[in-house]
């Protein structure tokens, strides 16, 4: 009988406790020797590496089952413990059981009436609410533990104390007495089967006394293989080391008992045996020191093999390594489409797709076979209909091999343009972290991706790496192509809006192209449109005299479908109290009518990534993902073409303020300072009015901070007034491409207050932040106010305070990511197999109901209008516009 004949499908799993008889029955050898191998390297009989435990050396036959290494499943042995020890995993339950039962007669400490009542209840629970069984059992135990006198034999019940991990004391009048494991075991033996049932256990598979071990199973040697180091020295597994300890103490205990040694010595050895068994199960048990290797490294015992990130579950069962995958650094490519991914030729030659030969593809496939594994559109393997694999690295004459294949053969061909693959960047926090892309085989060694897919992956190019997986079946590729293709993920379910879209230069470019002053000659316009991949006619020029000129808005209009109407306020809008809409003198109100950009500039609000209710959002919602994808692929290239032709750069001189502006900024700060010294004076004189819920000192701090914050804001305002309209940083801030007014103010005017824990900087020396200040100085300079701008450079003291604030930011992000990662794990584990059914109910795997209607309204947020089922306002606007002509 071979191992593979035994493979059957699992119908159910029953968890129970092994009885001593079962342990002996499944054991093939009683292990009594603490040694493993003799001098010749032969396993010692009845030792921990006994041949009957299964072979681990190739070519050897197992002494128990007769199989060789691959087939032998390994066989358990056992150790007969000289004295019983408590199984540390059940120690708590044993405590409950001891408390709930009589030490004398072993009955549950409940009256017969109560027992009857609970028996009926337990039966009902078993039928109707099996999940609640343990709750009831808990109640029974709690109830029984309260009784101090046995209702059956009338014996007084002593108070029990449990000391982690495995010690129990009984409090007698004469003092506390330690309960020996054999005493515990005999008490547990006295509990009747019917009482065991009331405690929520099935006595057939889990008798309480089995929680106290008399026999210890020894796992097969395959579970704890010894490794031979290069030097020829054998090194044993941690489990083997621990078992050696157990056997050694067990034998010594046995000898001492047989020799009639004093009780004290026996008890010491017994406790030592308990320690070794406890650490054998879990070497991180609280309350006892972990068992260590000779080198001082704690041993990795049973629990440690399973627990945590490197444990069996997370590392080997939830997380598996896969074939047909690749990983490399990513770099940007604004030319490829958003649906594409650039794959290095080297990788394309290693990743393969199995293709079945048919009458249509046989000639192409033959050419692939001829190319072989080293020339790109080639093939690595042929699988014959009988299942034999032919490695194309070896045949000298591949032409002959190619001619020999016929219909029905399968060829593992190289990845080629258009193949569908899955692309992923960790951490995979949402579904857009894994998307399907179409392969574009390219030279060099990095994966290339379109910049518009950076936001969903949260990718940048400072060394980020990404993974690629090749689905191996027609079904999986079709499914990935339909459901996971990038274009199908543009609208995010996180909020009703596009998660992909313009970032940085796309937005600056769109703005520069579509603002009023952009006019282009026929040559310029043609050049730009060619780069965008536009192949239609040029529209009639906006200006005819003195020569033909086109506006940027005209070019940007060419990519909207005809009949497309939309209007919105752009990012550059000044948010005037009453919006003049179409007549906005800043060209900040965008109007698109019948696919033509009539008014307004295109910026972040229209094409930005993560902008709901934008032009891009409307376009995809009304015209579908194909149109949306095409718009991103083409119009976005136009924006880049324009920014390329104009150039967008930033220089030091742009961050220079005129002298009078500098004077104004200085004046604003000086005024704030004088107000602060006034505040400090009032405080010192004791006239400062206390704010509600704050101490006097806190009030002063708040007021000073307010004053300084206002000063910084004012400085920024002044700077904004004096900056030229052509300032690039200003352009980027206003269009939403990158940066903010605050960043700009920091550069040109004043960096402002630095803070740690939301307060001005107070730490450092006694009563002062740095020795440069007098103790008790409450002024701005002494507590982290940075007067300078980045352009003016910070003085050493300012720099130091700035670094303090900056460090807090770094620490915060590091802490936040680890915390949110843990939370994410917990959430995903709880939610991973919950799903929305066709009737819109949300259910668990067993069909139980979690929500009666998905999200209470049944709306798919990805298909919603910014979370709402429909955007009534926009519909009315559209209907009115259509009616009014």
């Amino acid at each position, binding site marked *: 009988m071979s191992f593979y004949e035994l493979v059957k499908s699992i119908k159910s799993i029953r968890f129970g406790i092994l009885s001593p008889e079962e342990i002996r029955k499944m054991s093939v050898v009683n292990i009594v020797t603490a040694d493993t191998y003799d001098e010749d390297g032969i396993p010692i009989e009845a030792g921990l590496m006994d041949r009957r435990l299964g072979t681990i050396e190739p070519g050897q036959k197992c002494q128990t089952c007769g199989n060789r290494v691959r087939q032998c499943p390994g066989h358990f042995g056992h150790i007969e413990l000289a004295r019983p020890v408590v199984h540390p995993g059940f120690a708590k339950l044993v405590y409950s059981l001891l408390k709930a039962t009589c030490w004398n007669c072993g009955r549950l400490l409940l009256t017969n009436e109560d027992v009857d009542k609970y028996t009926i209840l337990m039966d009902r629970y078993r039928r109707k609410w099996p999940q609640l069984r343990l709750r009831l059992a808990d109640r029974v135990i709690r109830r029984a533990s309260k009784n101090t006198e046995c209702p059956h034999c009338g014996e007084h019940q002593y108070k029990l104390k449990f000391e982690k991990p495995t010690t129990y004391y009984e409090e007698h009048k004469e003092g506390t007495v330690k309960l020996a494991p054999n005493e515990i075991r005999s008490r547990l033996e006295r509990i009747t089967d019917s009482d065991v049932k009331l405690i929520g256990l099935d006595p057939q598979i889990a008798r309480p006394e089995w929680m106290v071990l008399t026999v210890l199973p020894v796992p097969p040697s395959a579970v704890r293989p010894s490794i031979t180091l290069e030097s020829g020295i054998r090194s044993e597994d941690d489990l083997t080391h621990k078992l050696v300890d157990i056997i050694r103490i067990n034998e010594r205990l046995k000898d001492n008992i047989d020799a009639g040694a004093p009780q004290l010595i026996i008890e010491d050895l017994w406790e030592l045996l308990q320690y070794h068994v406890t650490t054998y199960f879990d070497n991180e048990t609280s309350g006892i020191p972990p068992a260590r290797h000779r080198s001082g490294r704690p041993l990795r015992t049973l629990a440690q093999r399973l627990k945590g990130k490197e444990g069996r579950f997370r590392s080997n069962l939830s997380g598996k390594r896969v074939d047909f995958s690749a990983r490399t650094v990513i770099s940007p490519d604004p030319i490829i489409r958003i649906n594409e991914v650039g794959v290095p030729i080297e990788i394309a030659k290693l990743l393969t797709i199995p293709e079945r030969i048919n009458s249509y593809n046989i000639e192409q496939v033959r050419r692939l076979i001829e190319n072989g594994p080293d020339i790109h559109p080639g093939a690595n393997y042929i699988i014959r209909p009988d299942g034999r694999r032919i490695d194309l690295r070896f045949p000298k004459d591949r032409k002959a091999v190619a001619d020999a294949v016929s219909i029905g053969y399968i060829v593992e061909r190289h990845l080629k343009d258009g193949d569908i693959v899955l692309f992923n960047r960790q951490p995979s926090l949402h579904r857009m972290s894994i998307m399907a892309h179409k392969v574009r085989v390219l030279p060099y060694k990095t994966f290339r991706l379109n910049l518009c897919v950076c936001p969903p992956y949260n990718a940048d190019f400072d060394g980020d790496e990404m993974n690629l997986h090749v689905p191996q079946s027609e079904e999986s590729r079709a499914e990935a192509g339909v459901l996971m293709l990038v274009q199908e993920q543009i609208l995010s379910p996180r909020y009703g809006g596009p998660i992909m879209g313009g970032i940085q230069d796309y937005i600056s470019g769109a703005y520069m192209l579509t603002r009023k002053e952009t006019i282009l000659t026929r040559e310029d316009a043609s050049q730009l449109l060619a780069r965008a991949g536009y192949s239609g006619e040029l529209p009639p020029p906006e200006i005819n005299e003195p020569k033909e000129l086109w506006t940027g808005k005209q070019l940007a209009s060419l990519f909207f479908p005809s009949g497309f109407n939309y209007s919105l306020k752009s990012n550059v809008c000044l948010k005037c109290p009453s919006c003049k809409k179409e007549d906005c003198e800043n060209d900040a109100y965008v109007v698109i009518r019948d696919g033509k950009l009539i008014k307004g500039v295109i910026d972040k609000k229209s094409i930005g990534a993560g902008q709901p209710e934008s032009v891009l959002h409307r376009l995809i919602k009304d015209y579908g993902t194909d149109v949306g994808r095409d718009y991103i692929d083409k119009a976005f290239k136009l924006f880049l073409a324009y920014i390329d032709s104009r150039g967008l750069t930033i220089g030091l001189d742009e961050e220079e303020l005129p002298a009078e502006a500098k004077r104004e900024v200085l004046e604003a700060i000086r005024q704030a300072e004088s107000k602060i010294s006034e505040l400090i004076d009032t405080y010192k004189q004791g006239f400062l009015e206390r704010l509600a819920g704050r101490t006097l000192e806190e009030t002063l701090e708040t007021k000073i901070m307010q004053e300084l914050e206002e000063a910084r804001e004012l400085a920024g305002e002044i700077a904004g007034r004096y900056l030229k309209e052509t300032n690039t940083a200003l352009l980027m801030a206003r269009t939403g491409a990158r940066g903010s007014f605050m960043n700009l103010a920091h550069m040109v005017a004043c960096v402002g207050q630095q803070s740690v824990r939301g307060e001005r900087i107070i730490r450092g020396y006694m009563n002062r932040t740095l020795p440069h200040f007098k103790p008790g100085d409450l002024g701005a300079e002494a507590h982290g106010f940075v007067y300078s701008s980045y352009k003016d450079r910070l003085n050493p003291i300012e720099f130091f305070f700035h670094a303090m604030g900056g460090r807090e930011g770094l620490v915060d992000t590091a802490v936040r990511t680890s915390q949110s990662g843990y939370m994410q794990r917990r959430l995903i584990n709880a939610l991973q197999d919950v799903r929305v059914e066709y009737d819109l109910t949300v259910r668990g795997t067993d*069909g139980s109901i979690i929500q009666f209607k998905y999200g209470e*309204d049944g709306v798919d947020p990805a298909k919603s209008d910014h979370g709402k089922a429909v955007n009534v306002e926009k519909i009315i606007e559209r209907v009115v516009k259509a009616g009014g002509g």
Partner: protein
Amino acid sequence: MGKFDLLDHELVPQFRIMAKEEIEQLRKSLGVRKEDLPWMLKSDPVSKAIGAKPGDVVEIVRKSPVAGRSVAYRYVVPG
């Protein structure tokens, strides 16, 4: 603070013990056993207030910011 009726509180939705026929209909429309509905303990303050017993099904009508009105059900279990 004196005693108050928790069912009167603004934030407590409406609870109602359903009739046998209603439960049957609900069960059929969802294609589930009563046990597959979300559970509510008999010791829940609301169960006590409306006198729900194990085996009952309670209808909950809530005001919902997204759906206006939303209906949910709870199967009462002992505990």
